[in-house]
């Protein structure tokens, strides 16, 4: 039933007629007003209006405003999914507990939030950054498993994905905190530096040449050129002389340079704890600070040098805090206080 009382066909005709009139009729709203040519002399002719081509945005996440972020999330998640699948097929996942413990530790240095934002060309908030690094961590784990499992192709493929997200100076960052290996010179001397308070000591340690060569036994392994420590017992050969550790500081014997027994003991302590008395001689040059600081600096240098000569004893020296540079320094004076901590006398009024 037609509400209008007009037949269907007449309705269609009416619509078509309307359409026709719309295309040919110039409406007041759309027509351009008349402008005399003289006014248009100094006006540039209008550019031809191109028909607006709507190009498809590159990313489907364009209208999120953070295309880079969501795209990377997508690609990472898909990579995780695929690698997980692959590892499962290779029966490398899920790993049993003992295998997980045996895996080498992860050493990850991802880009900072700012760098990541630049990479993804989208400003990242902390939670978004954490989400990215979380996914990267998962992918890194899969890469590690693949690496340990011996699937180099898979591992390298994952590495190439992860590399873009890692910092440029990754190696430098990972190398921080690891002591540089101590070098030995042609005479077998180690050169180390020790510090305490304001003192700095340069320490050279050389193995003592054993005077009486012990009789070679079957159990004695092939000894390297330097750093052999063969204990000589005075009971086994009473005529053999037992060597003693000699310490020279700034050209002076230890006893002359440090008259206090406490300072002398501090310097000999690394030898005593490690049982290397009589095995090495020490020459040190120390500057700055006072007697106790200088003795601490020499002891620090000796500890580092002994650890270089005999790596096994490093744990002993670490546990006894001799390898660590004593971080205690003189505390600064503060305003409103007489000294670093001392306050002025309190006055009631």
């Amino acid at each position, binding site marked *: 039933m037609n509400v209008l009382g007009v037949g269907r066909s007449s309705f269609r005709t009416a619509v078509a007629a309307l359409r026709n009139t719309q295309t040919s009729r110039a409406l007041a709203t759309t027509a351009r007003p008349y402008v005399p040519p003289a006014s248009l002399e100094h006006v540039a002719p209008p550019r031809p209006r191109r028909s607006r081509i709507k190009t498809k945005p590159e990313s489907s996440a364009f209208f999120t405003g953070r295309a880079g972020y969501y795209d990377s999330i997508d690609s990472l998640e898909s990579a995780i999914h695929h690698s997980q699948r692959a590892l499962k097929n290779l029966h490398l996942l899920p790993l049993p507990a003992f295998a997980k413990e045996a895996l080498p530790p992860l050493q990850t240095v991802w880009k900072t939030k700012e760098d990541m934002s630049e990479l993804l060309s989208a400003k990242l908030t902390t939670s978004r950054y954490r989400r990215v690094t979380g996914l990267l961590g998962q992918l890194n784990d899969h890469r590690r498993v693949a690496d340990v499992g011996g699937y180099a192709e898979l591992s390298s493929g994952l590495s190439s994905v992860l590399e873009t997200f890692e910092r440029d100076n990754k190696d430098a960052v990972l190398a921080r905190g690891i002591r540089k290996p101590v070098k030995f010179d042609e005479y077998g001397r180690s050169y180390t530096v020790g510090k305490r308070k304001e003192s700095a000591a340069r320490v050279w340690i050389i193995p003592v040449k054993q005077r009486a060569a012990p009789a070679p036994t079957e159990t004695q392994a092939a000894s390297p050129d330097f750093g052999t420590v063969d204990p000589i017992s*005075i009971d086994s050969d009473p005529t053999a*002389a*037992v*060597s*003693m*550790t*000699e*310490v020279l500081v700034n050209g002076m*014997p*230890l*006893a*002359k340079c440090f008259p206090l*027994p406490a300072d*002398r*003991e501090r*310097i*000999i302590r690394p*030898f*005593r704890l490690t*049982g290397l*008395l*009589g095995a090495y001689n020490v020459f040190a040059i120390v500057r700055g600070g006072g007697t106790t600081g200088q003795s601490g600096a020499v002891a620090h240098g000796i500890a580092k040098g002994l650890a270089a000569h005999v790596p096994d004893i490093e744990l002993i020296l670490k546990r006894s805090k001799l390898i660590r540079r004593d971080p205690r320094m003189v505390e600064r004076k503060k305003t409103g206080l007489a000294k670093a901590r001392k306050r002025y006398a309190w006055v009631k009024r």
Partner: protein
Amino acid sequence: MTRDTAPHTSSLNSDPLSTTNPPEHWVKREDALPPKMSSIHAARCLLGSTVKSTRAVAVGRTYATKQVVAGRSLAQKTKSSSFRPSRRNDAGGEGSAKKERSTGAFQTMSPTSLTAEIFKDRGADELVLPTFRPEALTQDKVATAMKFPVADTNPMRAFGLPKNIATEFQLLSKPFSVIRDVTLKVLGRLDSANNKSSFHSRMVLTGSQGCGKSYTLLQAVQYAAASNWLVFYFPYVIDTVNSSTSYTYDPRTKTYLQPAYAAQTLQNFLTANSRLLQELKTPGDVPIDGRAPIQGGTPLTELITIGAKDPSSAPAILSALMGILSKQTDYPVLLAIDAFQALYCKTSYKDPQFSTIKSYHLSMPRLLLEYASGKKSFARGAVIGALSASNTTFSAPIELRESLKLGNGTANSYIKRSPVLVSYAEGLTKITVPEALSEREAASLFDVWMKDKAISRDSGDELFMSKYSEAGGNPRDFVWKGFLATITL
């Protein structure tokens, strides 16, 4: 606890708080060693030299002679004054055993109640050391520890000891020393000096602080005493120049005599050498000021006794005695002087015009300098001196250092050398005592102290090697700053 409740009847009180009589088992003050060991005199009398000998070296800078006889009664001193000075007991220390006082917070305990291990007797003597005898001193005995004989006639007991050695012997159960290469060297020189004039055998032991010069000198003295030498030993000759002994001006010789010190020296010499002096007699008359000359043919023991008893004639008798001994050839004479450099230093004495008296104007240093420089010499014998760095007031002056070629700024041509002292330092030969003990010598030393329970028995190689390294082998540092000073045993 009031007096009324304290029992008064019996002298032997079991009640420790009784104030009437001290219990029997308290060590009485007269028998005990002198309480204060800080004075050098007390340290020297440690080994039991006679009471008189300690007190004869009187303290004071008086111009006239001053005799302090031990045991002088209190009544004589305090006759006129009401002031009662503190009683001095025989050993020279303050306080008296007979003074009755309450024990206060400390209560006595009977010896039977001391049951802990530390109070028990040593029992079997763990420390077995060979005795220091001339026959036993061979090359293979280097680095062995040998104990010194402790007879009363030993020069150690008669003359006393330097303070540091005395302290060590106080701590040890037996006085000992370690034989070193330098010991054998010095004893060899003594052997060669046996039949020669002392002019050719004037030696000075030099070396760094704490290297063992005094100990080596002591070993030489012991060797000489055991080898029938007549021994003069001056353990601390600084006492002759630091104005601790009385001095008088003698117009005849135009020098300052030191009568008390001379008398003391004579007494000590007699104690140490009485056996050998029995046979010796004075060749001729010995003239002495103010009394009849001593007849020729008097036994030397009698001559010395006269001098020891009469300090006013002691310097003359001492120089006469030295003259007699220098001429006789029955026994060689050893003149051993520790802190030898003090003889060449500026003294602490002042004359009436308050100018410093030179050392060669005092009788005792002059006598020693004459024999040390060779101006006078023994027909048979030697002079050995040992430098000492302990007292910095009397350190070796440039004349002595140049003579001994010690270095340390002797090339300075802007310092005036006294020609008299240069002449007194002529002809001295230097024997350098090595700075460091060898490892074996140090091991023997360590062993003795360990067996004497100065160090824990559990400490072994580690303590020994660490202390040796810390001291650099220096004997004094090894013992005193090493294992006796450490708490990390």
